[in-house]
């Protein structure tokens, strides 16, 4: 009886493991960590690091994937006057060969990565807090399957110091 129970437990464990490894058991996620205080003087600029985390077991293409067929990770930001987005700097991707890539290395982000946006306040800017909004567009895969492209919102505020 005990032996039967042990066999049943092992069988259930094996079923559990096989189900856990099947694609789709986890939804790919990319999250933005809270953005720190961004302060600029009128006419000045500031670099804003945006820290993202890719969910474990997943990777997303870098901003420069090695194939034009692959969907790059792109950050789009919009700001109203007096704030302008004057630059977006992406990190280099990590070149990784996956079981499915047949020796070909893909340029990807996984785990934590940061994109640095540079904001600039107009010289005529008056003191106050101004919102910057946008989205990060990416396409995720795990070790055996790929998921449809997705976007997550990106928001932060820029504080312009009064003259």
């Amino acid at each position, binding site marked *: 009886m005990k032996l039967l129970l042990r066999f049943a437990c092992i069988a259930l464990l094996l079923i559990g493991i096989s189900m856990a490894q099947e694609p789709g058991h986890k939804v790919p996620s990319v999250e933005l960590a809270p953005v720190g205080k961004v302060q600029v003087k009128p006419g000045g600029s500031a670099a804003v690091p945006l820290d993202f985390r890719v969910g474990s077991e997943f990777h997303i293409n870098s901003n420069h994937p090695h194939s034009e*067929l692959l*969907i790059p990770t792109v950050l789009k930001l919009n700001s109203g006057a007096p704030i302008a987005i004057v630059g977006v700097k992406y990190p280099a991707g990590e070149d990784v060969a996956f079981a*499915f890539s047949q020796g070909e290395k893909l340029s990807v982000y996984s785990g934590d990565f940061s994109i640095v946006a540079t904001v600039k306040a107009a010289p005529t800017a008056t003191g106050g807090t101004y919102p910057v909004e946008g989205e990060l567009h990416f396409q995720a895969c795990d070790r055996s*399957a790929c998921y449809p492209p997705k976007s997550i919102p990106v928001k932060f505020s820029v504080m312009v110091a009064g003259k």
Partner: protein
Amino acid sequence: MLASGKYLDRARKHRAAGILVGDPVGVRAPDFELTSLDGKRVKLSDFRGKAVLLNFWATWCSPCKVEMPWFVDLQKKYGSDGFVVLGIAMDDSEPSKIAEFASEMGVNYPVLLGTDKVSDDYGNVQFLPTTFYIDRDGRIVGKGTGLLARSEVEASVQKALASKSAELNRQTTLSSMPAHPQPQTSAQ
């Protein structure tokens, strides 16, 4: 309890509408009409009597690229047995780009332009590749998600081919029946 009741109610409604819910094996494959890369309207039911490998893929899906040469080989190997591969491209890109990619991959089977509806009808295809194996009667005999081993893919193709269609069975039965029933003699 209430939640599961709601789920079951939704599942019943989906089944009634021909949408796949849960394990699709044994269920009739939802019919569809999609546009092929060469502009033709293609229905799944056009292939009734054939075993079908229905592959959801996209040009941006690297694991999908691994399977495509296998499908080309399987189409060559089993095509004369009544087997057909149908690719459903879930790209947002231009059909000309998909066609160029398919041509580079040496694809020898129809590629159809996917829609949200066909994805929903097949149980909301969430990741690629996803492949359904459909027998000659239009019933799903297998589903593969993610990149599997070629041997697993071929085994599923053989399973889909193994089933004889009801129509074929009827014809076989009729042709094996004697034209004039023989009088039966009972053993004494």
